[in-house]
């Protein structure tokens, strides 16, 4: 079963943005894949196609592929349609950089700071990037939501307790 309104929407978006891939995942869910350097162009096109609301920017860490996937969640209120714009950037700290979309979607400022705090992606052009956000000083620069962050080791070191974290035990007694 196809959802014709969505198919038409995706078609008209992809006509303007031939560099992107897009599909209808199911009713009222669209999915796009865009190269990272053209994200601003693409979001401008999305805005023209009546996606005025940014819900969230999420990041997914893929350590084996050495990439971080950023997902921009956009909402079309009239159709009740949720579009996910996905893009991949390298994972290394010096290369994980993105152009900001703060001027297109003002709500993105918060979400960009969030991703910067927890995943270490630097958004160029967002001048509040260095401003303290959720994390406190000791965790800043550790990027605790990355997959290779050694959570248990860090907890042991920081809180200095901890026989109950003994991994050889069959059963944890907390």
């Amino acid at each position: 079963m196809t959802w014709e309104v969505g198919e038409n929407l995706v078609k008209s978006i992809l006509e303007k943005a031939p560099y992107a891939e897009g599909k209808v995942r199911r009713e009222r869910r669209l999915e796009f894949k865009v190269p990272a350097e053209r994200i601003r162009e693409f979001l401008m096109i999305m805005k023209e196609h009546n996606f005025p609301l940014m819900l969230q920017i999420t990041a997914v860490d893929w350590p084996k592929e050495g990439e971080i996937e950023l997902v921009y969640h956009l909402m079309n209120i009239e159709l009740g349609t949720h579009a996910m714009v996905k893009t991949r950037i390298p994972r290394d700290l010096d290369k994980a950089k993105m152009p900001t979309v703060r001027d297109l979607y003002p709500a993105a400022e918060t979400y960009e700071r969030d991703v910067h705090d927890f995943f270490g992606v630097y958004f160029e052009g967002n001048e509040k990037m260095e401003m303290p956000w959720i994390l406190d000083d000791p965790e800043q620069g550790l990027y605790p939501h990355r997959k290779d962050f050694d959570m248990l080791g860090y907890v042991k070191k920081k809180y200095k307790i901890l026989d109950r974290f003994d991994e050889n035990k069959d059963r944890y007694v907390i």
Partner: protein
Amino acid sequence: MVDWRLFEPLFNWARKKSLWIVSFCTGCGGIEMPPLMTSRYDIERFGIIPDPSPRQYDLFLITGYVTPKTLKRIIITYEMAPDPKWVLAHGSCPLNGGIYWDSYNAIKHLDKYIPVDVFIAGCMPRPEAVLDGIHKLMEMIENGEADGWKRYKENYEWYRKNQEELLGEGWREKEARKWIPWLMDKKKEVKE
């Protein structure tokens, strides 16, 4: 000269009957507060009223998990209060970390940093359990067992050491100064 220690049982009786509370709604326990205060469980019949100011409270409720960042505020709020003051911690998170036992950003033992008089176990405790905890605390106040504020004074070095181990030395001043550069820039923008 009156020896006020003679009147201590009377004072304790009075204190247990008029607890003013500040609830530091850190976690999910904040949701348990409204039914507790409104007509269903109505803790006002025990002489308890919510109090907006940390300068006047007697009972400090910590409802849920505590992160190092909120711990700073908790310590400051605790130290602001005048002296007979009690702390009641809800749920298993302040007790031993609860479901955040391996989280980098939730403290595991609250009573290492401030003295806690009554812990209520559970995740999340029902309002009945909180009432039970408050009842227990009232008994302890009358018996003179609830002596967290005395313990804090006597063992201040130990508490201070634990706090500084976790939060870094001079965290009070650092925390106060942290926002100054950002506030300054903001002001400049406004002037121009």
